[in-house]
């Protein structure tokens, strides 16, 4: 962070996120990976409400917020204006980055992302994935994992939290034939930075999907954000991998895979599962299956 500050940060400190929030770390470490100027788009969500409260502004770069579901089409409009200006002699080399939470990307914003990727706009989508509508009090999203207790999938006498496994946006974007899609996490900043640089510098629509453990809604102490993130990778719940022109590379393979229990035991959203070991087992099976599937994808050259 010191290094970022010294270099006149594109995103200022002092935003209004919760203590222990992963989002400012994500924004700073992504934006600082290029010397080129960046224009950012931001979907309605945690990042937007904590960084743009009029008359304050955390963005030291041009930034546009339009609505919840349209950051991809909004940045597509900005990038098209840039293309138009470039045809007419504008010489600045600008990069475009669109930030969205999982709601603004996996769910309500998905169509606009799919359209923008199909049309090949030159931008990077950065998803800070905190696995639910956390800004509005913790409702379930398409990125919420199986078994999580959310305000709209509450654990009760009959229900045991969310009944479906989460959507895999990363692979859906790979299916769009994006030149670069990667999953990253904030406990491994070296890996994250490398990926951010690649994503921003690669021409065409690229994506970084970054796990953003949410102290407030997942229910863990603010000091443990990095630890939770690390456990997500060590349990293979959140594998760190990248897909370059369709080629899979799994960046981190845990020497000793930890059981999913170690990841969920530390979070209040899964607290009810201690009475339902079969649900934990179900989640473990999903994680194992997905991990195997990923390794197979990596084998295919």
């Amino acid at each position, binding site marked *: 962070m010191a290094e970022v500050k010294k270099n006149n940060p594109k995103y200022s400190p002092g935003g209004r996120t919760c203590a222990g929030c992963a989002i400012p770390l994500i924004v700073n470490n992504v934006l600082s990976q290029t010397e080129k100027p960046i224009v950012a788009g931001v979907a309605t969500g945690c990042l937007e409400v904590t960084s*743009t409260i009029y008359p304050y502004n955390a963005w030291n770069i041009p*930034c546009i917020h*339009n609505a919840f579901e349209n950051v*991809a*089409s*909004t940045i*597509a409009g*900005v990038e098209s*204006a840039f293309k138009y200006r470039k045809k007419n002699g504008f010489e600045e080399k600008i990069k475009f980055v669109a930030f969205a939470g999982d709601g603004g990307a996996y769910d309500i914003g998905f169509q606009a992302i799919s*359209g923008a990727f199909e049309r090949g706009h030159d931008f990077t989508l950065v998803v800070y994935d905190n696995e639910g509508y956390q800004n509005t009090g913790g409702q379930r999203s398409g990125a919420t994992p199986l078994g999580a207790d959310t305000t709209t999938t509450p654990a009760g006498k009959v229900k045991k939290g969310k009944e479906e496994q989460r959507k895999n946006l990363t692979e859906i974007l790979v299916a769009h034939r994006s030149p670069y899609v990667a999953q990253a996490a904030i406990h491994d900043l070296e890996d994250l930075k490398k990926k951010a640089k690649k994503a921003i510098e690669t021409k065409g629509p690229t994506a970084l999907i970054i796990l953003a453990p949410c102290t407030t809604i997942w229910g863990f102490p603010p000091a443990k954000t990095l630890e939770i993130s690390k456990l997500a990778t060590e349990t293979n719940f959140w594998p760190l991998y990248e897909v370059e022109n369709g080629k899979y590379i799994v960046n981190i393979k845990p020497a000793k895979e930890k059981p999913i229990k170690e990841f969920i035991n530390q979070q209040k959203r899964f607290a009810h599962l201690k009475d339902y070991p079969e649900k934990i087992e179900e989640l473990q099976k999903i994680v194992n299956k997905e991990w195997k599937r990923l390794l197979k994808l990596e084998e295919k050259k």
Partner: protein
Amino acid sequence: MNIKPLSGAQAGAEALRQIGIEVFPVYPITPQSPIAEGFAKIVANGDSDAELINVESEHSAMSAAVGAAAAGVKTATATSSQGLALMSEIVYVASGLRLPILMPVANRALSAPINIHCDHSDTMMVRDSGWIQIYAESAQEFYENLILAFKVAKNENVLLPAMVMIDGFITTHQIERVKLFEDSVIKNFLGSYKPPYNLLDIKNPTLVGPFSMPDSYFEFKISQEEAMENAREILVKEGEELKKITGNSYNYFEKYQLDDAEYAIVVMSSTAGTAKAQIDKLRKKGEKVGLLKPRIFRPFPYEEIKKALTGKKAIAVLDRSLSFGANPPLYAEIKQALGNKIPMQKYVFGLGGRNIYDKDIKKVFKELKEGKVDNKIKWIK
């Protein structure tokens, strides 16, 4: 000047070219599509170097338009009906951000039941969205209204988006003789474009679209209302300038045989043509009948309309849309302008593209003359 056989949609596409639209995100929808197709052909032929974005929905069309306009380029999109309904969330964002986006709209009925033909339900739905609204009777008017609308929209004391309406199929698809003015003349009339923001100005970073709390939101809305009030005078002033080029009038409304008329009809868009034809016939028989055709619906010219209609014996307002459970939109405004001094009858016609004939207009005047005026909607079916 150049006279060409053009459909309303083609005339609209020509206007977009002459205005020099630079980014045009658009999604096809009947009966708007020929506007998008017309402009796409212009771009394909190299007669415009605009960036055309074939987005995946109207929601994204307006979203991309907001992005492009905030990046400082001249921006337009076009739509109809369900498309306008889908983008309506961002229609409000465009005006809230004070972006002078230009949007031709081919008026079409709203679902359900689904219907592709003309009525005004779609644009009446967004009449309170903070956009300037101008309705056209003909392809010629549509073409000229687009040019006028953009000139006013981009005025630094206005900076509001503008939608310019044309009756779907009836006027979008009909071929008319359209007078196109020289590119250089239109360019000169429009002058330079000074965008409200420029996201591409990286040395002066701007945040567009912040989060506003109760301590500031109210002021933003007041400033939008002030801009709309400013647009009143600027529409008239710029209309007078455009008249010097075209010879046509751009008042808030057109008066046809109205000044000495005892009975008047108020109707917008293509149906005004039908009314004029019938008025000519009735006038020949010595009947003192006339028409008021509103062109500019937002901002609404209450005072001017009051002045124009005061003294009439009875007035019929013909709406091409409903406001379920309330007065139809055009009637509601005219009633507001006039109060209870003049007997007024509300008629609703043409829903879902139902034809209206000159005999229907004749009947309306007959009913006015016979004093058949009450509080209920009369349906012209």
